[in-house]
């Protein structure tokens, strides 16, 4: 059996990758994609806890996270489409009408 901690480290690495994407990228679509990566990292963590402790809740939480990821993608993409249509912007630092 693969040790539990490997999964933990893996999920944290993927979380960090996603976090970097959110913090550093400017393209709105890639920012949204990075949120998905973060979600995926955390899913591995939850599923592995469930797997090693024989408790169903982790899987169920993964299930809910999946749905939430879909929700976030849906809302985010709606807004991105609208922003692109109306403001012709796709980079986060160009969306800067408001200041201060």
């Amino acid at each position: 059996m693969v040790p539990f901690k490997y999964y933990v480290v893996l999920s944290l690495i993927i979380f960090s990758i996603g976090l970097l994407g959110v913090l550093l990228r400017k393209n709105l679509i890639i920012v949204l994609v990075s949120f998905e990566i973060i979600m995926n990292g955390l899913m591995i963590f939850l599923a592995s806890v469930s797997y090693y402790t024989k408790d169903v809740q982790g899987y169920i939480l993964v299930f809910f996270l999946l749905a939430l990821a879909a929700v976030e993608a849906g809302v985010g993409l709606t807004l991105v489409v609208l922003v692109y249509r109306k403001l012709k912007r796709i980079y986060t630092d160009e969306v800067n009408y408001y200041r201060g």
Partner: protein
Amino acid sequence: MILEMIVFIYLSLGMIIPGILAIISKNPVHAVLWVLVLILHQAFMLFTLGSEFLTAVQIIVYAGAVIVLFLFVVYMINLKREEIWKVFVKKSPLGFVIFLIFIFFFLKSLTFLTALSPHFKAHLPYDLTQGTNLWWIARYLFTHFLFQFELVGVLLLVVVLGAVFLLRKLKEVEGGSL
């Protein structure tokens, strides 16, 4: 044992490398496709973690729906502009600081996270001799987690309704300004 390890290493590399490629790719289409690769690998990792149900859902929902949605949007927006490296990443020291804080936090909590907590108590335990993983998940999902399950349904409904409301129904007022 060794086989398991090899599979794990393959799958984890199959997630990390596409992940990195996704966040550094210039073209959003590429990024989305790399995430698709990541998600497929992750689905199989969920399989090795004992849940064939989640694997299926992951592939159907994520790969089949969410990523396709992303692709649709990317094509719809049809970014013609070539990306220059200058506008590619934010020069945001604050973002980097936040990232470092998180990394520091993870390193600090690694000892706590890597060994299973002694206070962990399985509240909804399952036994594979009595039913498959799917059976157990379904059983709890429709009893203990019924309310949350319904809530997620409402949540998805609201997203769909809201998106349609915004994108289809509203007509911009000409010259209307605030």
